[in-house]
């Protein structure tokens, strides 16, 4: 049963396990450095659908079905699915999973959704409110562009601070503790932070304060330091946000994470070669990187414990047009190697 540790952190005493995980991605992501890690790479970003929204739904459903398959479960075994995406009213998720027949808890955490859904799914399993729960999320470059920015074929220029929304989906199946599977030890849900950044083309900068706050709270609550973890993995801060996160943690909290920090937005693309400016973003960025490359390394014992801190920018095109700043949130999930792996 979850025990509150410090002000913000939940210690999941039963250590729920991630029984199965999957990541499916689009063409550009499949051409990136993590190409060999993904469960499936779609070479056509429409996924054979008539709209990009439908393509995103298919992407997320595919990640869930593959994760269930790897966990040896069927939708009928699952008590809850916790999921969300970037599209208005989360249609990427709801249309994608409507055939699955699993009680659905829709989440909106923007790009923090993977940590939010995984954290909540783990809390439910830890509390014995669910035997099995699925956490999943997706994003699609084209569906995000048409909702948040310009038509795909519009000839505009993007500043160097802009990030590319990943066409990707990731899903985890969480169940009771299994000594052969990675486990979720603790969760810290974050507060909304806003230091006044208004530039929707610099979301890394908007989200870094949220990540810094959640990470600092986690270390305070658990009385640990960065040296106690093999990896601190932020969601999608990209180049600019990662730099600002390190500066903020050093300046405000005297915490140095420069030795063991990396960011999913930096891992998913070859930043220079694929011309993605400041890196990757989107719910599926953290969702797919965590559910492939990172979980594989945790399963192999190569990484003993990883603090996943997915970050989300909570603005909308309307708030941006109205000149509002960008509120952000970050949620942290501590995932450790399987007990039986040394």
């Amino acid at each position, binding site marked *: 049963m979850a025990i509150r540790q410090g002000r913000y952190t939940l210690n999941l005493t039963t250590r729920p396990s991630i029984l199965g995980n999957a990541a499916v991605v689009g063409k550009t992501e499949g051409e990136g450095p993590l190409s060999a890690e993904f469960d499936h790479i779609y070479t056509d970003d429409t996924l054979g659908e*008539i*709209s*990009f*929204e439908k393509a995103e739904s298919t992407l997320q459903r595919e990640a869930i079905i593959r994760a269930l398959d790897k966990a040896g479960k069927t939708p009928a075994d699952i008590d809850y699915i916790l999921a969300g995406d970037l599209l208005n009213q989360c249609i990427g998720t709801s249309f994608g999973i409507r055939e699955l027949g699993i009680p659905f808890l829709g989440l909106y955490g923007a790009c923090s959704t993977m940590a939010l859904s995984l954290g909540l799914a783990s809390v439910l399993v830890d509390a014995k409110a669910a035997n099995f729960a699925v956490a999943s999320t997706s994003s699609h470059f084209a569906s995000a562009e*048409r909702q948040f920015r*310009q*038509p*795909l*074929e*519009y*000839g*505009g*220029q*993007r*500043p*160097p*601070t802009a990030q590319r929304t990943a066409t990707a989906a990731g899903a985890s199946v969480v169940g009771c503790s299994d000594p052969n599977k990675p486990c979720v030890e603790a969760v810290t849900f974050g507060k909304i932070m806003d*230091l*006044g*950044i208004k530039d929707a083309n*610099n979301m890394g*900068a908007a989200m870094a*304060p949220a990540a810094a706050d959640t990470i600092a709270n986690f270390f305070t609550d658990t009385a640990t330091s960065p040296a106690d973890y093999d990896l601190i993995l932020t969601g999608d801060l990209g*180049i*600019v946000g990662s*730099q*600002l996160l390190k*500066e*903020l943690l050093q*300046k*405000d909290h005297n915490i140095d994470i420069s030795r063991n920090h990396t960011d999913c937005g930096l891992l998913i693309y070859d930043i220079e070669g694929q011309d993605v400016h400041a890196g990757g973003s989107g719910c599926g960025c953290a969702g797919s990187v965590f559910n492939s490359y990172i979980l594989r390394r945790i399963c192999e014992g190569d990484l003993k414990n990883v603090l996943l801190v997915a970050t989300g920018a909570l603005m909308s095109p309307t708030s941006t047009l109205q000149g509002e700043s960008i509120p952000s949130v970050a949620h942290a999930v501590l995932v450790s190697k399987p007990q039986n792996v040394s």
Partner: protein
Amino acid sequence: MSTTGKEYNEMTKKASPPSPKVMDILKAFLIGGLICAFGQALNALYTMAHLSETEVKAAVPVTLIVLTAILTGIGVFDKIAKHAGAGTIVPITGFANSIVSPAMEFQAEGRILGTGAKLFTIAGPVIAYGCSAAVVYGLIIYIFGLY
């Protein structure tokens, strides 16, 4: 002591790489110039083909618009524009692209409320304020013409 919004704004400015302005301007100048030179060449070509001056004035922009529409349709225009910036936006090519790209994008929402309604989402403000500016300019000319 936690960072204030003002301090963070400064930190963000320092951490954010600026756009490569010199290169951007140079590329905009070269590609924009090429488009204009091409327009001029078309002008000469149509004149040689014995089109009247009025016909040439219509035929040159129409040619550029059609070419832009084709390049936008086959997904090439945005790749050129990524480098050219204002070089492709300022000539009539930018206007054509701003109409064709939403027309393609919003097909999924249907011909009327998709393509039809969204056709002018980018070009609309240009048309509205362009016409308004023309009215003001016309008024100025009219007033000066009175004396």
